[in-house]
């Protein structure tokens, strides 16, 4: 069975490591914060200018001066620090954030990602997505395997305008997990979601990929 949104977030949380500084994108990636293993020290960055992001506030604690990059009200925690957006993106561009978990419209075999613009539709802007994919040490995409028309979002080549080229390291979908091998060496299927078959992935994936020798079904 394909993973639910919550299961996708739970799987993505396995990408976290103790001591990591992490930027989570809007949507499913935001849910990853709920699955940080107990005892693991993970610091969340919000690109508008905060390190050490806390959970949503209780109703009476809402502060209009304290929002995340998704413009949601949040809270501070003991290790929080605030800084300007220039300092925040210096941190991102300079490679100081260990991991970014982002959504995508399309990802290609070579690690290209498209997640900001559909030609002919109203474009809202790329926000910080281009900076994140170019700057963060490791970029993991979490998304549905197919779009709402049932078409594969894991492609030989992106068809939409790109957010970044050759930047994605891993793709986690509701069906499976691919690694993007370095140097344009293509995709490798490394995990299947519970109950998902190799044939199912093959049928729903436009991109070419190899299959890891240690391929395992997800627990």
């Amino acid at each position, binding site marked *: 069975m394909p993973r639910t949104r919550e299961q996708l977030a739970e799987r993505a949380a396995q990408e976290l490591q103790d001591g990591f500084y992490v930027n989570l994108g809007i949507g499913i990636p935001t849910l990853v914060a709920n699955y940080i293993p107990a005892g693991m020290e993970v610091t969340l960055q*919000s*690109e*508008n*200018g*905060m390190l050490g992001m806390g*959970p*949503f*506030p*209780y*109703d009476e604690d*809402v*502060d*209009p*001066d*304290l*929002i*995340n990059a*998704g*413009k*949601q*009200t*949040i809270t*501070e925690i003991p290790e929080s620090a*605030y*800084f*300007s*957006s*220039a300092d*925040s*993106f*210096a941190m*991102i*561009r300079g490679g100081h954030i260990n991991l970014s978990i982002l959504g995508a419209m399309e990802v290609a075999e070579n690690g*290209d990602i498209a997640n900001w*613009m559909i030609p002919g539709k*109203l*474009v*809202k*802007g*790329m*926000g*910080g*997505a*281009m*900076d994140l994919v*170019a*700057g963060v040490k490791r970029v993991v995409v979490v998304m549905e395997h197919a779009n709402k028309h049932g078409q594969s979002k894991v492609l030989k080549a992106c068809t939409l*305008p*790109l*957010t*970044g*080229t*050759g930047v994605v390291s891993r793709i986690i979908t509701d069906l499976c997990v691919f690694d993007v091998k370095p140097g344009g060496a293509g995709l490798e299927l490394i995990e299947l979601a519970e109950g998902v078959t190799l044939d199912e992935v093959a049928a729903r994936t436009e991109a070419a990929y190899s299959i890891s020798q240690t391929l395992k079904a997800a627990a």
Partner: protein
Amino acid sequence: MRKIYADAESALEGLTFDGMTVMSGGFGLCGIPENLIAALRDTGVKALTVISNNAGVDGFGLGQLLETRQIAKMISSYVGENKEFERQYLAGELQLEFNPQGTLAERIRAGGAGIPAFFTATGVGTLVAEGKEVRTFDGRDYVMETGLVADLSIVKAWKADERGNLVFRKTARNFNPMMATAGKVTVVEVEEIVPTGSLDPDAIHTPGVYVDRIIKGTFEKRIEQRTIRIRETA
């Protein structure tokens, strides 16, 4: 006390002209110069180029200047929350230049710091790099981006002293400190003006040299997405 003005209207006096470029601080509706945006609208100045990460919402923030069609062009990273913006943009009445958020922040910082251009990996291989110089350093490609300055920067801070030293609060800091450095003239609205000497000199975010005029404002601080958690009861 030379920098302190009675209100937003008087603080903008003599500073506005049609076709000017204005930087406006804030991220979403957080930390925007509410009072100065409204006063800028009331000057009736036209054909503005506005540099701001976002474009406000209908009827609030920069949405107020869009309603009155005073903006000719926006330089922003994300403009998703504004129907009037959409309408004008789709009708071809409004020019729009998208910058990646970090590139926008750095362009403003560079403009204020006397740096006319810099290289960044952000946007290489995308539409953002089209028509721009791309150069390889240490085996990686980077695109050249230019510094931005404005005729006027309007900025929201938390506190100012009488000499213009500023302190921002939490994530309302965002684009405000860089914009304060990149305006030929910088006008600031604050929640409180404190006596010079009462701010910790180690904790001043923007030194007074960048601040030309200050007003004490009144603030609505509208919230775009009120997200809360529910307190579990025993």
